[in-house]
């Protein structure tokens, strides 16, 4: 996700819709207020928490994306720290509930606040933060803006602890981290959802943590390159995983079917915007109707679609 948006009426209805359909609902919300994050064990030593399809705000402590961890013979790697230091601490508590091994790595899948606002929770744990080689630059230019723009929706209490902490171990191309008999393949992607997307593949369980390269249910948000994202769906699909933990969506999801919904959305959006550009329709008009056929397929469509369409228009008119 990118920004808090301002349509409270729609936010509320999206939230109610979520409550009615979600299998977690009230119990999950209560649990997340204190104690460990309620995680699911997907495979032996692979755990993930399923975030809500909502905007980040004080009531959900920014817990809107999927985060997780993998336990090796010697060490643990956390994957994303969540949308607040409170969530980061709850993630650490979830790790400590099942393992006393050192948390050697925190892997940030990309720059967005719902994935990195919890980084400060890992400060005292002797943890190395790992990220895409473009992530420090992205956080340098955006971090301050993120801290300012989420103050209103997240509230001063949650924001007080949050600091932007960039990774110190950087990944270019493909690299392996070993947790002791448990090699993880980290892969840095070309601009897609952002210009700093990183995926984590656990070779032992064949589970892929996609970061926000995969959205299910929650409308994908565009903060990188739409043709870049579409071009990389094939190599992404070719990752030989059995299950995926998407950045947003059910934990776990079947792979590569997990990519089908977003592919259909991108195709609709790109097709509609390209047609408008070719026909000379101005941006302001074009974004009102783009990808309208996808409206009923997604949560948070109203919040993000026109914004995605605006970004897509500004990028695709240079083709």
């Amino acid at each position, binding site marked *: 996700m990118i920004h808090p948006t*301002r349509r409270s009426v729609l936010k509320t209805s999206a939230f109610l819709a979520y409550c009615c359909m979600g299998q977690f609902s009230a119990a999950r919300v209560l649990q997340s207020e204190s104690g460990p994050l309620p995680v699911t064990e997907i495979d032996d030593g692979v755990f993930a928490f399923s975030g809500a399809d909502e905007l980040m705000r004080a009531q959900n402590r920014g817990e809107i994306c999927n985060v997780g961890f993998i336990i090796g013979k010697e060490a643990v790697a956390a994957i994303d720290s969540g949308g607040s230091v409170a969530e980061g601490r709850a993630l650490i508590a979830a790790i400590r509930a099942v393992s006393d091994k050192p948390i050697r790595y925190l892997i940030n899948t990309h720059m967005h606040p719902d994935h990195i606002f919890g980084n400060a929770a890992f400060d005292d744990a002797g943890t190395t933060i790992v990220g895409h080689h*473009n992530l420090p*630059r*992205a*956080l*340098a*230019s*955006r*971090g*301050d*803006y993120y801290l*300012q*723009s989420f103050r*209103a929706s997240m509230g001063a209490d949650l924001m007080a602890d949050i600091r*932007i902490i960039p990774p110190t171990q950087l990944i270019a191309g493909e690299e392996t981290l070993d947790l002791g008999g448990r090699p993880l393949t980290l892969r840095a992607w070309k*601009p897609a959802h*952002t*210009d700093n997307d990183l995926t984590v593949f656990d070779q032992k369980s064949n589970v892929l943590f996609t970061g926000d390269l995969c959205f299910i249910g929650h409308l994908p948000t565009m*903060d*990188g*390159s739409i043709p*870049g994202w579409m071009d990389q769906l094939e190599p992404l699909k070719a990752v030989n995983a059995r299950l995926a933990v998407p950045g947003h969506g059910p934990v776990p999801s079947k792979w590569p079917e997990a990519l089908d919904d977003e592919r259909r959305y991108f195709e609709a959006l790109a097709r509609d915007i390209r047609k*408008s550009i070719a*026909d*000379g*329709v*101005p*941006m*302001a*008009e074009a*974004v009102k109707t783009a990808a309208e056929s996808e409206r009923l397929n997604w949560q948070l469509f109203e919040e993000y679609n*026109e*914004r995605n*369409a*605006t*970004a897509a228009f*500004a*990028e695709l*008119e*240079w083709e």
Partner: protein
Amino acid sequence: MTIIPTDRHNRMMPFVLLALMAIAVPLSANAQGTSVPESTTWNSLKGDVFGQQAIAPADGVVSIEAPKRAEDAALVPIDLRFKTDATSGQIKAVTLIVDENPAPVAAVFKFGKDAGVTHLATRLRVNAYSYVRAIAETEDGKLLMTQTFVKASGGCSAPALKNQDEAMASLGKMKLRVFPSNAPGIEPKTRATEMQLMIRHPNNSGLQMDQLTRYYIPAHFIQGLTVSQGDRLIMSMEGGISISEDPNFRFEFDARPGEDVRVEAADTEGKKFQDEWPLQPSSL
């Protein structure tokens, strides 16, 4: 397209000074905004920009359109139309102002004497709930104003450059499109030609902070632009930081088929960009 480094020149000082003055003022009150528009900002701004000159309502001679609520505050489409009939005469220049922006004067456009510009659209950064206003100067020196209110926040401080490597690699690249007059979504025209000029440039606002150094990333933007056909000026622009990344201008003017369209632009680092395109019937 060529890039020629030259000396900096300082005709943009008014834009920069206004920006610096405004940085000192806390933005948070404005950024949160209220839904009740107030024009106190404009009242104090008016004298700085136009001195004691009287400004009359545009009364349809100039009209402005913008979304009431911006989807992306860093990319707010603004549409200006000019009525240029016998009674109103030609428009000589138009100043685009975003009241609540750190540098309120977004751009000053000047039109060639016989350019016949009737429509001009661009994209702006809007930093807070704000009036966006256009003040046109007629041939006989009268100022006419129209305005619209836009709800947006953070457009100037929002980091742009979704794809930073790509943005810097293509700095200064230009693209010109000529729209066929019978395309859907475009009103039929008689002799005017509609064009869109696009320039690759980050147009950094100078309000984005470097998290590591705690310094603001220096403003770096297109400050001057001229569009001409043959040897006649169609339009010139002096721009500030409120023009969006990858400046984009769509305009209608009286084109002379067969004459080349030439664009020159200069940014605040002294880089010059230029390009030209033949305007042939085939491109229409």
